[in-house]
């Protein structure tokens, strides 16, 4: 039987407290704590093997935590089976039932609850994901993008407290991804359900999330808004995972914050002399590689309007104080 959610605690709909998952061979998740607010689009971001999918599966109920607590609406769901939790998962390969039609797939959860008069709700959710008219098709008869929408509809129709998405865009064509990204975000906004989204693509995470958490080797490195995490990374890993980074000694500076000047007037006090080693034209900007006097190389992203720089040209490399990233 499903457990009804308790009266909501203000703010956090989902909370993980010191959750650890130890497998025989390795520790996949190590004392992760995080809180997801109601209606939030929250991403778990990290490279493969960092534990983000395991974390998702712990919330879904497919794995049991070795220790720690998982709370949904303030109530512990740690010992509940997947079918007793009011969360729903959109799998990476969608896991649509091949022997059922689109309609039967979407109805599946409702039927298991005993709700046999569900035509209206199914029609509504199929409208929402723009699949109206394809109810009688089988999964093998529709495209990859359409299958993803069926998987989404199948979970949304159950009105879960949290929707768990395991890299749903990775199986799509690259050109389709940006469009689907926007659609997903739009759906989340209009339905208002909390999304817990797992991805290894930092651009996706930054574009879609209200807040995100960066994971690495089972640890949670940092959680915060996209701006927080990109502009004020707390660890080296977070800084270099979320975007390119130049290291000049102990200081990190993003390429778009690394400036190239020809004269000392434009540059600030901290300017360093450097020689351009390569200039790559990327259409809307230049990537200028320059070697400093002490041998270190930096890459600067320079606007097209700032003009081309020639190889061997001697320039000044500088940046603003507030663009410096330092780590303890």
């Amino acid at each position, binding site marked *: 039987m499903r457990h009804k959610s308790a009266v909501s605690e203000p703010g956090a709909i989902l909370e993980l407290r010191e959750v650890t998952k130890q497998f025989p061979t390795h520790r996949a998740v190590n004392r992760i704590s995080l809180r997801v607010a109601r209606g939030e689009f929250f991403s778990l971001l990290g490279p493969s093997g960092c534990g983000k999918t395991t974390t998702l599966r712990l919330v879904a109920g*497919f794995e049991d935590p070795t220790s720690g607590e998982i709370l949904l609406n303030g109530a512990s769901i740690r010992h509940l089976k*997947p*079918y007793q939790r009011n969360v*729903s998962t959109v799998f990476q390969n969608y*896991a649509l039932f091949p022997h059922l039609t689109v309609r039967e797939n979407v109805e*599946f959860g409702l039927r*298991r609850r005993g709700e046999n008069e569900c035509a209206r709700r199914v029609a509504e959710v199929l409208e929402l994901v723009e699949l109206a008219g394809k109810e009688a098709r089988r999964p093998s008869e529709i495209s990859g993008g359409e299958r993803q929408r069926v998987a989404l509809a*199948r979970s949304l129709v*159950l009105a879960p407290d949290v929707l768990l998405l395991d890299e749903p865009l990775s199986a799509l064509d690259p050109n389709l991804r940006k469009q689907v990204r926007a659609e997903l975000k739009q759906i989340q906004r209009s339905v208002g359900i909390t999304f817990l989204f797992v991805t290894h693509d930092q651009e996706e995470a930054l574009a879609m999330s209200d807040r995100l958490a960066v994971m690495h080797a089972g640890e949670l490195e940092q959680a915060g808004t996209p701006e927080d995490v990109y502009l004020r990374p707390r660890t080296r890993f977070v800084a270099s995972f979320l975007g390119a980074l130049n290291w000049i000694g102990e200081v990190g500076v993003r390429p778009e914050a690394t400036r190239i000047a020809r004269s000392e007037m434009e540059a600030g006090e901290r300017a360093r002399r450097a020689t351009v080693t390569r200039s790559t034209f990327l259409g809307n900007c230049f990537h200028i590689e320059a070697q400093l006097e002490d041998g270190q190389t930096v890459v600067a992203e320079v606007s097209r309007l700032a003009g081309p720089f020639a190889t061997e040209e001697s320039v000044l490399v500088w940046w603003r104080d507030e663009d410096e990233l330092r780590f303890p």
Partner: protein
Amino acid sequence: MRQRGLVLSIYALGTYAFLHLPLLILAAFSFNQSRFMVWEGFSLRWYQAALHDAQLLEASWNSLIIALVATLFSTVIGTLGAYGLWKRTSRWLAGSLYLSLVTPEIVTGISLLAFYEWIFRYLRVQLGMHTVILAHISFSIAFVVIVVMARLGTMDGHLEEAALDLGANEWQAFRYVTLPLILSAVIAAALLAFTVSFDDYVITSLVAGVDSETLPMVIYAIARRGVNPVLNAISALIVFGFGSLILISERLRAR
């Protein structure tokens, strides 16, 4: 290269002839008017003789009953077992199933005979249809497990997780998601188990009672006595019948 292709083709043709001619010849002579090796014209007399022979009919009936009951049980038990093993293997069960496949039939047969005799010291039962059926269930299960597990191996493991995620409990996930997807393999396994059971001679002859003569036992007795064209007719019927069942089974497996 082309010459070798020709040599290989001829060799293959010869081997296929070796494999198929004996049965084809057997079937051809079942239509022979004469009971000797000379062809004297087309006739269905041997088929008529076969279908009117009381002993043959009774034995066929016994074989049918045994095969149907044994197949029913072994298919159900084997399918459930395959599913259980697929979830997480049980080494001793997998091992004993494998062992039952490689154990020579004569050994299986005599061990069951010994087992039954030992049991009969304590229970007031004798050898009969039931002992044969139990024996058939025992050796058929491994076949069913193999066929069903092969199909389960091609199934996406996430499908059951999705079912659980959407609110189905473990039994419902099996019933509404897994079972429909393996059903054609289950039927294929049943057809296979049926033919294996119907055709068994060695084990059956050892554990059958006086009243439970099966068709293979009668065929064996006739074959030992001498040339009998009725046997050709029976052979043709069985080979054709089983061949069709197995063909259907293979089609279902490939789905």
